[in-house]
């Protein structure tokens, strides 16, 4: 009984056990034993890549009950060896934080406030506008030379998106005849 009581005292274990510096087993307490990593109950670990700069640090995304619960550096990555910088470490807030908008917002011409709009309706409205702006800005020729293009609409952005997304942007807008397609690489 007494021995067990003394044995629960970290400093006793530090001097009698194999942990003279008190940085290993000797420092453990009942409280320590009760603590579990916040990711220990995760249902899945999904392999990912940091979305900020172009170093491409590996990320482990922990999922529990269909929600992302933690994002950590991937120790397997030969690029980053498990490290993340302050931005990469804030990826959980980026992806799950309150500041993210989750619904479509619409500002009508001359309107003073946002309004809600159904996503399907928004997509149909945007498709209508693309078709019309494309036609309005259409040119078969300029200065007697064939151009087969539209200057009616433009697109900006791509460096934060996936390669596959950039591929579809360039492919669709080029087929529509748009040439004013640009991204952050210009800045």
């Amino acid at each position: 009984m007494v021995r067990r009581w003394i044995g629960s005292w970290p400093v006793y274990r530090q001097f009698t056990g194999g942990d003279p510096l008190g940085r290993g087993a000797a420092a453990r307490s009942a409280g320590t034993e009760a603590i579990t990593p916040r990711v220990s109950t995760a249902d899945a670990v999904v392999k990912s890549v940091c979305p900020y700069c172009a170093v491409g640090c590996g990320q482990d995304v922990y999922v529990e009950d269909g929600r992302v619960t933690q994002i950590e550096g991937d120790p397997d990555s030969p690029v980053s060896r498990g490290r993340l910088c302050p931005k990469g470490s804030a990826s959980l807030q980026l992806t799950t934080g309150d500041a993210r908008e989750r619904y479509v917002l619409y500002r009508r011409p001359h309107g003073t406030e946002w309004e809600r709009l159904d996503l399907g309706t928004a997509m149909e409205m945007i498709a209508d506008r693309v078709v019309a702006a494309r036609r309005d800005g259409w040119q078969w020729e300029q200065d007697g030379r064939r151009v087969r293009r539209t200057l009616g609409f433009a697109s900006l952005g791509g460096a934060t998106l996936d390669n596959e997304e950039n591929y579809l942007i360039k492919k669709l807008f080029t087929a529509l005849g748009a040439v004013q397609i640009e991204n952050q690489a210009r800045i």
Partner: protein
Amino acid sequence: MAECHPVGFQWVMEAKARGAKLVHVDPRFTRTSALADLHVPLRAGSDIAFLGGIINHVLETGAYFRDYVVAYTNASVILGEDFQDTEDLDGVFSGLDSDTRSYDHQTWQYEGLEVQSAAGERTEAVSESARGEAHGSGGAALGEGEPRRDPTLEHPRCVFQVLKRHYARYTPEMVERVCGVPRDRFLQVCELVTENSGRDRTTAFAYAVGWTQHTVGVQYIRAAAILQSLLGNIGRPGGGILALRGHASIQGSTDIPTLFNLLPGYIPMPHAHTNENLDAFIEAEAARKGFWGNMRSYFVSLLKAYWGDAATADNDFCFDYLPRLTGTHSTYETVRAQIDGDCKGYFLMGENPAVGSANAKLQRLGMAALDWLVVRDFSLIESATWWKDGPEIESGEMRTEDIGTEVFFLPAAAHTEKDGSFTNTQRMLQWHHKAVAPAGDTRSDLWFMYHLGRLVRRRLAGSADPMDRPVLDLTWDYPTSGPLDEPDAEAVLAEINGRGPDGAPISAYTELKPDGSTSCGCWIYAGVYADGVNQAARRKPGREQDWVAAEWGWAWPANRRILYNRASADPDGKPWSERKALVWWDAEKGRWTGHDVPDFVPDKAPDYEPPEDAEGPDALRGDDPFIMQADGKAWLYVPAGLMDGPLPTHYEPQESPVTNPLYGQQRNPVRHLPSPHPDDLYQPSGDAPGSEVFPYVATTYRLTEHHTAGGMSRWQPYLAELQPEFFCEVSPELAAERELRHGEWATIVSARGVIEARVLVTARMTPLDVAGRTLHQIGLPYHWGPNGYSRGDAANELLHLALDPNTHIQEAKALTCDIRPGRRPRGPAATALVRRYRDRAGITDRTGTEI
């Protein structure tokens, strides 16, 4: 690098722990400087003088790697007699046409080469359209014939001698005068770099937009390329010129370009020429030698990926379906087209130009003139809300009720909510897997583009109008799944990778054919889906691999980790030294082998000499390591492909307090200046009257805790707390001169705008002794805008739009301004203050536009 690419910087620290010396050249003292062996503050905008000084040192002291230079560069090539250097013409090259602000490149050619046959009819519009960038994967085409060479490097017109004369005036004294770097410190850098280069040692240069955002940005990189080629530091482990890029897939969005001037894989967008067709395009654009000699195979395969069965040999594989350029259509010209009412619709996808682009006011004026705007992002960034709370609303220049722009805000899915690949700064693709489905209306951009295309095609279905054929013939049948009908990203990757005649994924771009039997969405990415396996998703742990880690992700081209690595071996195919061995020729097996995938034809022997009529890759010799170049050599001198000269030359920034100490020519004579706009005026420079009104140099930059224009960091509580508001960095000396107090406010003014910032008085900013005077520099992190948790004015309000003529990138890294204590005025008083400054400096729409 420690500041903006901190996790990549761990490898620099590994190298330092093993004895490497680290030099940091930057106007400001950062976390990188704190860990460097040597920090060299210099005047923003003077790097070509600095690098030119090192080039001169290397040439004068004979510190160059002679065997490498003679064998692998164009040092021995003899130039035509008509070429005149900046030495002959006081700062400009031969061929300058002052009226059109452009160079005729004819006199820059190698002696004995004819100009590319079809190039004669190419118009000046082509030279305006960021053509230089079409060489992101290799140099420009050369003409017919063999250049004359002098391997002794003694001929007075050989590149080596021209280089020597060109840089002779970039002495340590001149570097001190131009850059504000004391002679002894400059020579210390020269010694560190040359001591650490040669057979046994290599030196690397890492840079970011501090080198590119100038009116001479491409020439900054060229200067580093000359230096690294002279020192033998290209294609070898530990060497190179490393672009540290700032977005997760900015490399990918250049390779698969959402850029006006490029098609996937750096194939240029066609221009409007008379009688243009596929043959004429290839004739004019493809190189005769090297891998660009196979451009037709890459291009036809792209057209097949876009238009599938509709693309046939009989219809030129739908070449005519491509829209044509007539000059520049860059983001800055597009803004002007919006203001002028020509461009009426605008998609913003993960970019925030209302605060993130140079001269942010012009961006907002453009958006205010649109019919409709679609913003796809995570949060309500400034580009989504300018119509209700932008600076022009505050100043009274605009009223919300008067703005007719219809705005759609569509929330975007995060990287954790979609499958897809990013291409990192070293050309490596890494796949990220979907962890959870996007919530509410949030959707991937893949979803948005696919379904937008579907809806547009439905509207055009049945149309007989020839303008609609390219849309209706487009291959657009990606499989979708789940309740959201999410397109399959891997199916898109498979299309990018390409398919052979049997429909199976190809494994290398060398399998592509010019006859339409293969398809490929981006030829340099061929192999990323080899064997039907997503190679970008490979994740063999680094600790289970060698230092090359070739089984983690996939790097273009062909999973090579170091480009041009044939140069790591000598002309006979043996490593220059055992210490720096990377790839080598295995004579027994008759193949190239090594730690990395050899960047060379696998079985081409080092002593191979091509027959005279050989073309494409077959025309490269066994000792031509630069296989994307039209002559297989590293170009010390660039005879074709650049708008602003064959050799980097120091010009002052568009706005500079200094008169160019090196030449009578003040600025890059062919820098691109958009047509004048009352909100985009330039300030006087040097000793021109009025320049004293804007006496300080300002430079913009990033901080560790924020990302670009803040769209992904100002809404994150942790990051907002770490860097809670906009500030400017000033030296104690400048603070004393302008009565600025630490922690209080300063107002910063240019001819474009006025902003306020918290003052950070710090010795991290150093006054420099430049051209006989004390020069103060002001540091401006550019992450801010009025929205989010961490707020402040946008540094981009101050910027003008003078652009690099090759890339059309703005000069964000060196401009002039004034600074004064206190907060900026509000309402109409803000614009009145800017007007007063313009008047005091005597600014008109012609100021600063001299050639």
